[in-house]
C-alpha cells in the first residue's frame, strides 16, 4: 500500500477520534441531564454538586476537553434574545447644537458678536454669521479650533464661516459608544445568573444580547436592566472623617451571613490607617445596594452612596482574616459622595482623550468641558482643593482623582495615580471610553426582541430530530438501493459528514438552532450530490469498458472540478448569509458552510479511500 493511502487513513482516523472527543461533553450532558429545567439551569450549578454526579472518568479529563459543549440555541432551549441599536445620530445632533451655543458664548467672551448662527443637521455643519467680516479669522484660528475637537473648518463665504463635523469623529464616537454600551450591558446582565449569556456587536452599531434559559418571570426585569441608559456624573467624595463615621455606623447594622464583610485597612496612600475605619465590602453589588437601601435613613441629606469595584485578592487587608478571599473574585465597596454641589454631568463633557505626561511618561485622561461645565468646574475646584473628585457612571465610581489646584477653562486632567504604566494605560483607556459614551448621551433603542418558552423549544427539537432521521433514512435507502455497495460507502461518508459538522460547531462554540438543523438536513441532501457525480462518472467509465481501478481513478479526477466549483459557489451564498444574518439565520449559514467543507473532504478522501480499499480486495468486481 502506498504511503499517501496510509496518510489518508490516519487523517480520517484522527478526525473521527478528534470529533468524538469534542462531542463527548455534549453527549455526557445529554445523557445525564436530559431534563434540566429552566430554573435549575439558572442556578449556576458548580461541578460536583450535580445530581446525578458526573462520572469519575469524566471529571478526570483535562479541562479543555470538557469545556466545549454544543449548546442548544435560544429557539430550542427557550430564553430571551434582544437586539439594540445605539442611537448615535440624535446624540451627534444634540452635540452640534450645544457646540454652536458654546462657540457663540466663547466669542462673546472675547468681544466678538455674532449676527446669527445656524445648525445644519442634514450635513452636520454649523455656520456662523459675523457682524464684522474682519473677525471671521477668530473662529478659523487653529488655537480656537483645537478647543473644539469634534469640529473642522469647512469654508468661509463673505461673513459666514462654516464648520463641519470632523471626518473621523462620527466613526470614533460610534465605536467607543457601542463598545462601552456592550461593556455596561455585560456587567448588568452578569447579575441575572443566566448560564451562558452573550453580548455581542452586530453590524457595527447593533448590540445583540442572548440570555438562553432565562425564566419568563424574569424577562421584564432583564429588559429593564439592560435598556437603562448609563448616566455620567461628577461629584465630590465626601470628607474622610464623615465617611469613616458613617461606615462605622453602617457596619454595625450588617446582618449575619449576608455576604457583606468589613475590615480595617487602607486603600489609597492618602487614606490614614485607622483601626476604627470600617469599609463595607461585598462580593455582589446587588447585596450591597439592598443593604444600603435598608439603611437609607442613616445616610445624611446631600450625601449619596456610590459603589466601587475592588479586587480583593490585591487587598487582603480589607477583609477579615477568616474570610477566604479567593471566593470573592470581584467585590464591591461603598463610597460616600456629596450631592449638594452644582450638578455636572456627562452632557458637559465635550471631549475626552488619553494623553501622557512628558516628564513621567505616565498616561492620564484629558477632558474638555463645555462652557457651562467649565465655569461650574472652576467654582467647585476653587473651593475644594485637596478633596477627591468622584466620577460616577450610573452609581458606580469609576475614578476618584484628587483636586490639586483650581482648574480654570474647563481643561481637566485626570491622573490615575498608582500602578504600572501598562495598568494605568488600560485604566485610562477604559475611562476615556466611559467618558466618551457617557459624554455622548447615546440612548440604546430596542430593535427587536424574541422570547421563546421552553415547551415550544422542546417540540421544535423533537420535530427537527424526527425529520432529520427520516430524511437520513430516505437518503440512505435510496443510495443503497441505487448504488448497492457504493451506496453504503456514500452512507458512511454522510455519517462522517454529520459528525464533522457537529464537532465543528461544538469547537466553534456555536449553538444548535432550528435553522441549524434545517442546514444539516439540507447538507445531507446536497452532500450526496458529490457522491452521485462521482458514481455516475465511474459508471460511465465502466461502460467505456475500463477496469474498475481505472474507472475509479478517472471518475474521481473528472468529477473534481465540477464538485469544487459547485461547492465553492454554494459557499459564497453561505458566506453572504453569515454576514447578513443575525442570530438564527447565522446558525444556518454556519452549518451550511461547515457542511460544504465536510462534503468536499468526505467525497474526495473518505469515499475514495473506501473505493480503493474495495478494489484492492476484489479488483475485478464493482458494485455500483
Amino acid at each position: 500500500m502506498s504511503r499517501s493511502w496510509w496518510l489518508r487513513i490516519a487523517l480520517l482516523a484522527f478526525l473521527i477520534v478528534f470529533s468524538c472527543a469534542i462531542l463527548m461533553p455534549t453527549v455526557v450532558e445529554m445523557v445525564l441531564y436530559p431534563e434540566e429545567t429552566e430554573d435549575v439551569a439558572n442556578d449556576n450549578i458548580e461541578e460536583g454538586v450535580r445530581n446525578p454526579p458526573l462520572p469519575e472518568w469524566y471529571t478526570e479529563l483535562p479541562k479543555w476537553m470538557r469545556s466545549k459543549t454544543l449548546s442548544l440555541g435560544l429557539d430550542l432551549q427557550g430564553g430571551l434574545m434582544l437586539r439594540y441599536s445605539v442611537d448615535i445620530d440624535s446624540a451627534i445632533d444634540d452635540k452640534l447644537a450645544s457646540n454652536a451655543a458654546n462657540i457663540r458664548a466663547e466669542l462673546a467672551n472675547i468681544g466678538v458678536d455674532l449676527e446669527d448662527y445656524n445648525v445644519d443637521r442634514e450635513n452636520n455643519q454649523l455656520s456662523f454669521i459675523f457682524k464684522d467680516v474682519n473677525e471671521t479669522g477668530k473662529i478659523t484660528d487653529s488655537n480656537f479650533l483645537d478647543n473644539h475637537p469634534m469640529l473642522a473648518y469647512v469654508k468661509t463665504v463673505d461673513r459666514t464661516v462654516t464648520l463641519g463635523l470632523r471626518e473621523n469623529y462620527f466613526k470614533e464616537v460610534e465605536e467607543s459608544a457601542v463598545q462601552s454600551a456592550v461593556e455596561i450591558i455585560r456587567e448588568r446582565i452578569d447579575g441575572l445568573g443566566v448560564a451562558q449569556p452573550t453580548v455581542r456587536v452586530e453590524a457595527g452599531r447593533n448590540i445583540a444580547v442572548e440570555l438562553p434559559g432565562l425564566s419568563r418571570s424574569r424577562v421584564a426585569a432583564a429588559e429593564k436592566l439592560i435598556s437603562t441608559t448609563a448616566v455620567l456624573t461628577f461629584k465630590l467624595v465626601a470628607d474622610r472623617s464623615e465617611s469613616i463615621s458613617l461606615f462605622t455606623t453602617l457596619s454595625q447594622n450588617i446582618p449575619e451571613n449576608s455576604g457583606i464583610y468589613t475590615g480595617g485597612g487602607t486603600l489609597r496612600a492618602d487614606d490614614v490607617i485607622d483601626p476604627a475605619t470600617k469599609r463595607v465590602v461585598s462580593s455582589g453589588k446587588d447585596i450591597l445596594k439592598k443593604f444600603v437601601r435598608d439603611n437609607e435613613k442613616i445616610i445624611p441629606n446631600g450625601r449619596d452612596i456610590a459603589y466601587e469595584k475592588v479586587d480583593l485578592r490585591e487587598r487582603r487587608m480589607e477583609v477579615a482574616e477568616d474570610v477566604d478571599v479567593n471566593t470573592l473574585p470581584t467585590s464591591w465597596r461603598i463610597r460616600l459622595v456629596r450631592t449638594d454641589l452644582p450638578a455636572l454631568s456627562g452632557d458637559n463633557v465635550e471631549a475626552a482623550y488619553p494623553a501622557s505626561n512628558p516628564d513621567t511618561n505616565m498616561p492620564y485622561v484629558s477632558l474638555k468641558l463645555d462652557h457651562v461645565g467649565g465655569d461650574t468646574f472652576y467654582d467647585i475646584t476653587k473651593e475644594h482643593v485637596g478633596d477627591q473628585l468622584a466620577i460616577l457612571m450610573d452609581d458606580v465610581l469609576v475614578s476618584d482623582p484628587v483636586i490639586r489646584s483650581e482648574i480654570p477653562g474647563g481643561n481637566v486632567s485626570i491622573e490615575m495615580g498608582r500602578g504600572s504604566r501598562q495598568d494605568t494605560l488600560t485604566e485610562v483607556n477604559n475611562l476615556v471610553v466611559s467618558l466618551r459614551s457617557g459624554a455622548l448621551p447615546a440612548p440604546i433603542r430596542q430593535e427587536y426582541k424574541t422570547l421563546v418558552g421552553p415547551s415550544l423549544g422542546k417540540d421544535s427539537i423533537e420535530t427537527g430530530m424526527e425529520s432529520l432521521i427520516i430524511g437520513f433514512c430516505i437518503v440512505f435507502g435510496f443510495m443503497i438501493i441505487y448504488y448497492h455497495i457504493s451506496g453504503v460507502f456514500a452512507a458512511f461518508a454522510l455519517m462522517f459528514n454529520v459528525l464533522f459538522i457537529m464537532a465543528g460547531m461544538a469547537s466553534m462554540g456555536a449553538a444548535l438552532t432550528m435553522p441549524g438543523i434545517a442546514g444539516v438536513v439540507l447538507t445531507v441532501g446536497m452532500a450526496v450530490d458529490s457522491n452521485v457525480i462521482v458514481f455516475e462518472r465511474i459508471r460511465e467509465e465502466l461502460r467505456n469498458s475500463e477496469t474498475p481501478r481505472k474507472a475509479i481513478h478517472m471518475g474521481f479526477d473528472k468529477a473534481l472540478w465540477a464538485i469544487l466549483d459547485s461547492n465553492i459557489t454554494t459557499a459564497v451564498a453561505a458566506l453572504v448569509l453569515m454576514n447578513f444574518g443575525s442570530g438564527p439565520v447565522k446558525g444556518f449559514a454556519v452549518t451550511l458552510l461547515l457542511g460544504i467543507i465536510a462534503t468536499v473532504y468526505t467525497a474526495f478522501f473518505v469515499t475514495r479511500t473506501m473505493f480503493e480499499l474495495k478494489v484492492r480486495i476484489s479488483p475485478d468486481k464493482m458494485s455500483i
Partner: protein
Amino acid sequence: MFTMIKPNTKIPFIPNHKPVLISLVVLAFAGILLAFIMGPNWGTSFQGGTSITLHFKGNVPIERVREEFVNDPRFESVSVQSVGNEASNRYVVRTRTSTTLNCTKLEEVKNAVDASVASESGNVLKIGQWPACNPKVEDGIRGDFFVTFVPLEGKQAPESPIEEVKMKDIFVKAGLDADVSYESGAKRYLVKPKGIQSEVVDLMNQKFGDNFEGEKGIDQIDTVGADVGEKFRTDAIVSILVALGLMLLYIGIRFDTRYAPSAVISLTVTTLITFGIVVLFRFEVTLETVAAFLSLVGYGINDTIVTFDRVRENVGLAEPGVPLDNIVNKAINECLSRTIITSITTLGAIIPMAIKATGATQDFAIIMTIGICIATFNSIFVSCPMFLYFDKWFKGMAKRNELRKEIADLNAEA
C-alpha cells in the same frame, strides 16, 4: 445495474427549449408582477410589529382570542392563527403594533401629566423636558424616557421633588402604565413604560382568567420596530443580490463570460418564480425565508455548474465542426441522471421536514421543496439555452468587430 436514465439517452432538450424557456421567463415576470400587485406577506421581522405565540390551559376557541385582540384599540391590524392542531390551544397573534406608546398617545399622556403635576404642586411646576416623538417612525418612541419638571415663570421651585409613588400614580392616571424612578443627581424622573408583553399578559389574564397562566402562557414573542423592519428588508434584498454578484464573478473567472450571465439569469428566474409562489400562497416572508432563498440560489448554482462543467469538457473533446447546440444537448443528457438523483435525495431529506415541522421551519422546508423542483428544471431549460444565446451574441459581436476593422483598414488604404 439499476439505472434511472439509460445510457446514451438523447432527449432533444435544446431543439425544443423555446416554448419551455419562454414560459419560464413569463412565469418569472408574473412573479414580479404578483409581488407588486398583491405584495408579499411580510412577517413581523420585515414590517415591524409583534408576533406572540400564546397557549391556553383549557379549551379556548380561536374566535374568542381573535375577538379580544381585534376589539382592543391598542393593537393594530391583528391576525390570529392556530399553531399545530386545533386541540393544542396554541395561537399566533400578529399585530403591526410594536409599542402601544405612539405619538398621539404620548401627547395625551403629556397633557394629562402636565395638568396633574400643576395641581399637585399648587400651580408651581410644569413639564420641562419631555421625549421628542417622531411621527414618521410609526412607533413613536420605544423604551424608557426621562422627564423633568421646572417651575412656572416667576415661581419658586418647591424644596423637595414629587415622590416617586405619587409620580407613578400621575402617570397611571394619565393612561401610561409605567415604573417611575427619581434620579436625585440629575433631578429628573426615569419613566419605564410597561412593554407590550405585560399588556398582553394583563389582557389575557383579565379575559381568560384560569385558562391563561400569566407569563407562562407566552411561548414566544417577537417584537420588531417598524423602521428596523424596513432595514431588514433592504438587507435581505441586498444580500441576495450580493450573492448573485459574487457567483457571477466566480463563474466568470472559472469558466468564461458566456457561462456566468447564463447561470445568474437562471438563478434569477428560479428566485422570481419561487417568490411568486410565496406571494401567491401568502407564505409569511421571514428571516428564514431569506435563508431559504439563499440556499436555493446555492442549490441552483450547484445544478447549473455541474452541467456547465460537462459542457466545457465536451467542447474541449468535440471534433471541429460539430455544432455547439449538439454538444450542449449531449452534456445535458449525460448529466441528466445525476441531476435527477440529486434532486430526489435532497427532496427526500427536506420533505419530511416540510411535513413534520411547524412555523417558520416548515415554511423554509416547503419553499425549499418547491424551489428545488424549479431550480432543477431551470438548470436544463434556462442555463443551457441562455449559454447558447450568449455564445451567439458574443460571436456575432466578434464578427462585427472584425468586419468593422476590415472596413476601417480598407478606408485607410483608400
